[in-house]
């Protein structure tokens, strides 16, 4: 009896395996079209132009892949004149993407055009795996060449890992800064307070938020201010002290006449002492360092937070939830950079012009495909096409209502990935247009607030000296690059586990574990670039 069962089992196993193998051969036929330099041509446009297929890899947070003949493929073939093929590669914060990319490279199958991540472009350039774009861009991608300002191209040249002043990647540019401190103006109004400008005024406002129940629910549940884990997204508490900081990561700027890492300066020590005081007095979310994005946003949206730091133009998201959830029509306004004692006039919001590398082009493809890759980059740099790219494919990404294109909600099971060059290279005007476009009569006020914030924060912005500093200065010192020591000391000092005196220990350790070498390299770079 058992024997028979085993026999049946084995037979079904064999049959299943056969079925699967059979299915696989038929589906693998379908897959042969993702070519890589094999010169597949398909589809003819009106001008009998040959459409070459190129494989493009970009960060994909879950949208469907683009295969030959699919809606996005056809749409891009018409709009850009290239066969855009993009497989699904899991992003997962970049780690999985990097692994998949490396595996492909090891197997000799690099995509034609792709997003480099975490400094891989330096290795690729040094090994001749990606194309030298210096002369190719003006020739085959003039729109892109002109879109990015010359100073930015010069920085890229200066950061050439081969040291020859060549261009190996296409950078993103930050034409305007997005982040700022934001405050519930309606709370200030409710309590009869003015927008704070000095630190003393600011702390008084925080205290008032905590004690005088501005959200009016009779419970002392207000969180005056706070941030997220690793002491990030609380830059407004640091930038009062003239500290260079991007989205919570300390950065490099001129201190005492020399390019220095902001985390090891006197400014930082004073800032930490101040913030520790805020924490001790309960003016800061006690769980700040346990907050992930969802948790912190949840608190903001639950009408609990008075002051936070994030994207000025993103206010509409919070305003929507505050209205739907707590039933409050809030007013979120820009918090000016506060004047800290001893640092009056020195505070600023950090920005850089040079964004991270957006695209590199494989050198392991034939000339036809190389030119097609460049054509791709050229076309997506065409600002006149951005609106169409943003709107995507009709029926998939947008629908037409009363003759006007309306974007459909995000749906990863039906929508394919596309490119979004406007995020990498976009201007404030384009962003404004997008925001107004999404507005309806009832919710327009939210978008107007967002636009107002986006514009108002620009007056506090300063471009820091380390704009363009290459990440190669950290080579060999990954923990310095990762700011591991900083996270540990900053969080512990703020929550009070360490006294502020431990800061000096931090500085010493930082220098000893490689900070001194990194600082030297950074200063060398600065000297070279500023000759």
């Amino acid at each position: 009896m058992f024997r028979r069962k085993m026999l049946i089992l084995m037979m079904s196993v064999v049959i299943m395996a056969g079925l699967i193998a059979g299915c696989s051969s038929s589906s693998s036929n379908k897959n042969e079209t993702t070519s890589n330099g094999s010169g597949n041509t398909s589809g003819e446009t009106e001008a009998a132009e040959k459409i070459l297929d190129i494989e493009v890899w970009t960060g994909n947070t879950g949208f469907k892949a683009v295969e030959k003949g699919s809606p996005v493929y056809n749409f891009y073939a018409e709009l850009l004149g290239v066969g855009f093929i993009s497989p699904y590669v899991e992003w997962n914060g970049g780690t999985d993407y990097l692994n998949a990319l490396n595996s492909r490279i090891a197997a000799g199958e690099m995509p034609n055009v792709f997003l480099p991540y975490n400094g891989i472009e330096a290795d690729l350039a040094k090994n001749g795996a990606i194309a030298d774009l210096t002369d190719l861009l003006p020739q085959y991608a003039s729109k892109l060449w002109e879109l990015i300002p010359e100073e930015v191209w010069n920085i890229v040249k200066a950061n050439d890992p081969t040291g020859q002043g060549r261009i190996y990647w296409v950078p993103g540019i930050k034409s305007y800064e997005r982040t700022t401190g934001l405050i519930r103006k309606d709370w200030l109004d409710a309590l009869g307070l003015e927008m704070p400008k000095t630190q003393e005024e600011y702390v008084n406002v925080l205290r008032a938020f905590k004690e005088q129940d501005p959200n009016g629910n009779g419970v002392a549940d207000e969180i005056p201010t706070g941030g997220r884990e690793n002491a990030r997204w609380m830059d407004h508490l640091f930038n009062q002290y003239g500290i260079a900081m991007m989205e919570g990561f300390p950065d490099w700027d001129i201190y005492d006449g020399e390019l220095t890492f902001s985390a090891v300066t006197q400014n930082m020590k004073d800032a930490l002492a101040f913030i520790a005081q805020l924490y001790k007095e309960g003016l800061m979310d006690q769980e700040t360092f346990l907050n992930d994005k969802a948790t912190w946003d949840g608190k903001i949206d639950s009408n609990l937070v008075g002051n936070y730091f994030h994207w000025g133009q993103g206010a509409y998201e919070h305003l929507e939830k505050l209205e739907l959830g707590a039933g409050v029509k809030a007013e979120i306004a820009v918090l000016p950079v506060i004047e800290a004692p001893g640092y009056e006039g020195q505070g600023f919001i950090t920005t850089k012009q040079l964004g991270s590398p957006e695209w590199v082009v494989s050198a392991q493809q034939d000339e036809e495909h190389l030119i097609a890759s460049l054509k791709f980059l050229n076309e997506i740099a065409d600002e006149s096409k951005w609106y169409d790219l943003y709107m995507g494919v009709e029926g998939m990404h947008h629908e037409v209502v009363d003759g006007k294109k309306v974007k459909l909600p995000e749906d990863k099971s039906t929508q394919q990935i596309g490119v979004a060059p406007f995020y990498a290279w976009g201007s404030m005007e384009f962003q404004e247009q997008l925001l107004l476009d999404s507005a309806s009569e009832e919710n327009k006020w939210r978008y107007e607030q967002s636009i107002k914030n986006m514009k108002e924060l620009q007056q506090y912005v300063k471009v820091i000296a380390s704009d363009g500093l290459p990440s190669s200065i950290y080579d060999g010192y990954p923990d310095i690059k990762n700011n591991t020591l900083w996270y540990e000391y900053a969080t512990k000092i703020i929550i009070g586990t360490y006294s502020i005196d431990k800061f000096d220990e931090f500085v010493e350790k930082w220098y000893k574990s490689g900070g001194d070498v990194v600082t030297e390299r950074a200063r060398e770079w600065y000297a070279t670039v500023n000759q």
Partner: protein
Amino acid sequence: MVSLSFGEKVMHTIIIIFLIIVGAIAVAPLISVIAVSFSSRLPVELNEVTLWPKGFTLDSWNYILSRSDLWRSFAVTVCATLTGTALSLLITALTAYPLTKPEFKIRSILMVAIVITMVFKAPLIPYFLTVKAVGLYNNPLVLFVPHILTAFNLIIMRTFFLQFPVELEEAAVVEGAGYFRRLFSLVLPLSKAVLATLGLFYGVTIWNQFQHPLLFVTDPDWFPLQLKIRQYITSDNELPIVGSIAELNYNSRTLRSVTIAFSIIPIIMVYPYLQKYFVKGALLGSVKG
């Protein structure tokens, strides 16, 4: 049945109460996930949902269950799990049996080799290149072939086989039965418990697999369940995506909760079925004296 003494009855009750409490604590996370899956978008975003749904809605479930590509993944995963588990059990038994026989000369060496494979792991790129070289890149067979054997399961089966008294097979040897006969007619029928156990282990491994398909499967039609589910889970973007948001009553968190529940339920349904193999007395009457 012999009746228990009073002290034993008390002990018994305490044990049961203790286990019930532990069980409840163990189940709590799943209950929380299910609660989120039936909740509306806004309460979830405001972090208001704990063990009970808020703003009860079937929208998230509707959305997920109507994704045809998800059902295809489900089917793919079911096929791969059934095939793979059967194949794994077969090969594990075939490999474990000789390891229990002292007359098998290379027994010790093999054991050391097996433990080595468990302790020393291959780095990513060489593994990728090897699997690719064997022809499994972008081949659906990769969904179960790399999981056919694990050192852990192999050693467990061997340990179980070793529990059988030597007399078990002696009768068969006398009758002239070869090793294959002995394995399939004698040993395996009595090994239902370990077969069920390893079947569960292998099955769950294939069912939950994610790292392998991530590297080796590029055709979305062949994505197994977990990989497909990952597609619906975003790490929330920093930058707000401009577009109409308000009408949807679900978000990535509620959808994620649905997919998690969706992938666990089949396993919960299968286990009680396997449970009957864990009944005491499987050996009853097999060996006399």
